[in-house]
């Protein structure tokens, strides 16, 4: 296997960062279960998917997460946080 380029769309950036995804998009404030946006908001869903795909073609730093705000999503949600190890 030579490897295959991937891009992750994450709504839990702190949690997913623990697995070191090579490229990731965090649509800021989207709740869990809404990775692409809300149901039937096709234009928003297309925008998110285009932005994720563009990360493939951009020379991003391996392991970085791009945060993008989509105001049309509406109400924002706080993502889950990773508990600090004591």
């Amino acid at each position, binding site marked *: *296997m030579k490897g295959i380029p991937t891009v992750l769309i994450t709504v839990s950036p702190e949690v997913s960062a623990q697995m070191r995804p090579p490229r990731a998009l965090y649509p800021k404030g989207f709740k869990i279960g809404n990775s692409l946006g809300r149901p039937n908001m096709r234009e928003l869903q297309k925008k998110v998917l285009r932005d994720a795909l563009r990360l493939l073609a951009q020379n991003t730093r391996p392991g970085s997460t791009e945060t993008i705000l989509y105001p049309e999503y509406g109400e924002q949600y706080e993502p889950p946080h990773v508990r600090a190890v004591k």
Partner: protein
Amino acid sequence: MAISRKCVPFTPFDRELSKSTIALVTAGGVHLKNQEGFNIADELGDLTYREIPPDVDSSHLMVTHHHYDHSDADRDINVVFPIDVLRDLEGEGFIGGIAKKHVGYMGYTMQLKAMYEGTAPEIANEIDKGSRADAVVLTGG
């Protein structure tokens, strides 16, 4: 060969998106309605995955996952598995095509080692060998 947990497994993408074929892999518990659902009764999680064909009617997809609220995905599967959105982008010429195989699994497990060393490479192999994908979009729940 196992990938080090310390490294970022970055594979460069050196193609044009408009000529590239894209696959979807979701941890959101997505599968065809006529496929066996994921085993939510097992508190350790379910290490299996389901292949989803490229010509799937999105109304034939469903979610079995008990660790997130998938009521929105029940109304529109594209919020976690954007197969119709991908078709739109293909129609626009933004991407070149849709891969021959996509994958759904239930992204919750207490068996991390088995998921990391077993299921994940199996899924990667399915996509690498069977989908003709140039790149993969990963989604969670």
